[in-house]
């Protein structure tokens, strides 16, 4: 099992979102409760934002 950091709250539904110790700034994670995409704004301290909406020119 992966070690986890203190779990920040989902900005939408307040559920705890546990982040692994390998979490990175700008990483996209999913809220286990509301399934929204969240962006890790900061790791120390752990802080989450709603991830930006997909834009028309996104892709590979």
């Amino acid at each position, binding site marked *: 099992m992966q070690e986890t950091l203190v779990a920040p709250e989902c900005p939408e539904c307040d559920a705890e979102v546990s982040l692994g110790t390998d979490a*990175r700034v*700008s*990483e*996209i994670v999913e809220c286990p409760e509301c399934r929204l995409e969240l962006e890790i704004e900061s790791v120390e301290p752990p802080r989450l934002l709603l991830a930006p909406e997909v834009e028309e*020119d*996104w*892709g590979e």
Partner: protein
Amino acid sequence: MSSAAARLGVLASRVRFEEKNILTALERRGVACEQIDPRALSVRAGTPWDGPQIVLNREVGHYRALYAASALESAGVTVLNSAAATAVCGDKWQTSAALVARGLPTPETTLALTPDAALKALEELGYPAVIKPLVGSWGRLVTRVTDRAMAEAVLEHLAALPSPQSHIVYVQREVAKADRDIRVLVVGGRAVGATYRRSEDWRTNVARGAVSERCPLEADLTELAVAAADTVGACVAGVDLLEEPGGRLTVLEVNDRVEFRGLQSTYGSDLDVADTIAALLTAKAES
């Protein structure tokens, strides 16, 4: 790791599986790397930049990726892939034109400069055909047209769109039997892995739930993929190939900021895609 090695950066506003694994691979190699968020980036023309001298472009948005690459290059930074490669890969017509100029096989394509001209072109090309937006990926707004009535409806819709670019219509003959495509990952002029991608949907994008399975790296396939990546000037590329009914391979597109989660899961521990890219970046920094 020589002390004179250039500083490395990874440009990404969205750290996904791919970016996270590349950053981790660089750390495992003991290479310092700066994460650059293009949302906070501005570059003054003609002024040296104090950031990394070598930057891997992993920005998910095409325009942000393209202009970030161009701006960084203007500040003397080496960007992988180059702004020129991103410009060609990000535009379906420029890709087709480059492949054709190089003499590489690619599905028969016509560029029509108005929706009206596109209808005439479709009548000549025959149905079914595919209308694609010039810029865009993940198969968005790619439309398969099976007859004239449908083509008229789609083109009427395009004509009503406000963007002048939407009125330039990219039309391609549908490759028969293309229920799967082949994604070849090319890194530093070498094909490192390939997968078949199958889908119920005729667009075989992994983003649309296509299933991938490993595809042997046969010589014909690797040569074509490497040539396609070279044609567009991409040192990291996901080259999409289709098999025509007779078995002939044809190049569909070249992706410059390639997603490789599907390919990586297909290969498991037999290939570390992120580390292969990290190795290329490290080599550039030391050269």
